[in-house]
């Protein structure tokens, strides 16, 4: 059934007439995604990839049933675009914007929590259920990375996701649904908040989280396991084990200070509840085999 998106999910593209919007709309459709319409203020009447473009989300949803919205909108306008999507009743929103102001991100997440919506991103490649649908910009054409399968993946990174997922595939597995939480300090949605959907998903056998130093998202996942809310096998790969304290290494969200958010603590948290932490990307596959008894 996939999580967040599958081939039946009706996707709206906000910012569809921009260069990035056009390019990736074509690729999303190429990947199987059911893109139904686009929005760019002032461009109503145009078409992109045969899809109608509307002035506003409200005008789009008046004409088309929409389940999810993909934002190709610059960082400074992302907050407005997210609120517009929420106003249109859309509960699944993906924003790839890299550079959303911190205070905007706080307001975006707060609004999403209030509306019971899931905003994925920013600073992410998006979400993909390989072979079915994609929102964002994944190089789904690289088959040694984006091979369909039964492993759920969640990540805070971009390139590292390609690296680690390639190792999962190399070990003989494939990906059910991949969610790019993103590398910002305040992502719209957090790892732990996606776990219940992976738990429910009949097409996911285990979950890999690709994390890094800083923040508390990995610890939150450990709490979900401890509380029995997530029971499938979980393997983590965490970048920054050897990172020196106090230096801003990794994403903006990744600052270690005062011992909080260190990879050491994260490993302890995950292992204490039966999860596995792979020291190297290559070991992720080994841990999966071990946990899944293969």
């Amino acid at each position, binding site marked *: 059934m996939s999580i967040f998106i599958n081939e039946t999910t009706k996707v709206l593209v906000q910012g569809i007439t921009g260069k990035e919007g056009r390019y990736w709309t074509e690729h999303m459709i190429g990947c199987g995604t059911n893109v139904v319409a686009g929005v760019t203020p002032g461009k109503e009447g145009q078409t992109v990839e045969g899809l109608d473009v509307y002035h506003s989300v409200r005008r789009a949803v008046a004409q088309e049933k929409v389940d999810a919205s993909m934002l190709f909108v610059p960082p*400074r306008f992302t907050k407005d675009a997210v609120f517009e999507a929420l106003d249109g009743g859309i509960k699944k929103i993906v924003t790839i914007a*890299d550079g*959303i*102001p*911190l*205070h905007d991100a*706080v*307001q975006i*997440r*707060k609004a999403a*929590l209030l509306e019971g919506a899931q905003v994925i991103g920013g600073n992410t*490649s998006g979400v993909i259920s390989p072979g079915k649908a994609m929102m964002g*910009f*994944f*190089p789904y*054409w*690289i088959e040694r990375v984006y091979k369909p399968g039964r492993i759920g993946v969640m990540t*805070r*990174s*971009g*390139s*590292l*996701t*390609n*690296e680690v997922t*390639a190792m999962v595939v190399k070990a003989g597995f494939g990906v059910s649904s991949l969610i790019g939480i993103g*590398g910002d*300090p*305040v*992502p719209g949605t*957090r790892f732990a908040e996606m776990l219940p959907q992976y738990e429910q998903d009949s097409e996911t056998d285990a979950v890999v989280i*690709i994390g*890094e*130093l800083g*923040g*508390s998202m990995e610890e*939150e996942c450990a709490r979900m396991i401890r509380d029995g809310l997530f029971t499938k096998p979980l393997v983590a*790969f965490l*970048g*920054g*084990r*050897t*990172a020196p304290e*106090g*230096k*801003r*290494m*990794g*994403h*903006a*969200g*990744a600052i270690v*200070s*005062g*011992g*909080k958010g260190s990879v050491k603590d994260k490993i302890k948290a995950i292992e204490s509840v039966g999860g596995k932490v792979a*020291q*190297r*990307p*290559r070991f992720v596959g080994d841990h999966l085999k071990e946990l899944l008894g293969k």
Partner: protein
Amino acid sequence: MKLFEYQAKETFRKNGIPTPESVLITSENELGAASEITGYPLVLKSQLLMGGRGKAGLIRFVQDRAQAERECGELFASHFHVTKILVEQAVDIKNEIYLSITVDPVKAKYMIIACAEGGVEIETLAAETPEKIIREYVDPDNGLHPYQVRNVAFQLGLTGDVLKKFSLVLSNLYKAFLANDAELIEINPLFITGKDDVIAGDGKLSIDDNSGFRQKTYEITRDYFDTDAEYESALEGIPYLQFDGDISLMCAGAGLTTTVYDLINYEGGTVANYLEFGGPNYKKAVRAMELCLKNDSKVILVVTFGTIARADVMAEGIVDAIKRLKPDRPIVTCIRGTNEEEANRILKDAGLVPLYDTEEAVRKAVSIAAGGEA
């Protein structure tokens, strides 16, 4: 962007938060004029971004002119690269409080942190006496309610006149936090003086880099950085950290670069510099390699696995950089992602040996650094 104490305090004053009388000086000659404003005793505070300035001897309490001149000279001459000193009136301190505002990414609220025992680093407080830390969460849309300010003040045990003055400081700190798109705004210590005045003893203000389009931008100067290389790379907008090992990283993607850093350490190698030229910088290969070549590294390791940052464009950049800069050390490449076949062709044509596996590339670089064959 982290600001200096003197900049944070300028912001404080602009927002109605009292600070001690102070004058910023850039040379010993200005000390006399400054001390006429502050009087003696005074404090010489080196304007550096590093934490623990007190312990490092970069803050000096002085009683008189002679001592001031001596200590001031020492500070400007120190190896910490001190170019600015804040000359500040010494305050009659009765009590010190910790007060800051930052973001809580889980609750999606702003978080006020306070502690009746200031002057210590909050991380130390949090580790040693977590029960003494006061937290108040502010809804970003509703704003800071007066009752929340009172809640903090009452928990700090404040009363009467001090409570009123503290409340104004906290309200104004919140305004400054919002107005500056701050990641963190901190007063530590916040002085309660013998006369029950409430005054910012120190100040930290870190501004969200993503808010540049709507914020006053501060000119980036050398002072903000530990090393020349970090300063130079910041001017280019290239994430860069200086170390003193053997392998220069030239990678794309924050997570992947950090992972390569780990893998080098696992393999017994040492890193000369952390450098990301992914994201918007993926066409800046020449500039990135130039930065790497300034180090005494023995090898440059290129690892990428990009989507929008196309492999062929990065490969072309590397080849171009080699042609222009004629590097005096081997380059190990492991370039994957969109158009990787084309990338590999480009690298091979240029006489390089493209690798496809990150760990293999790391081992190769470590081996070269240890004197192995390129």
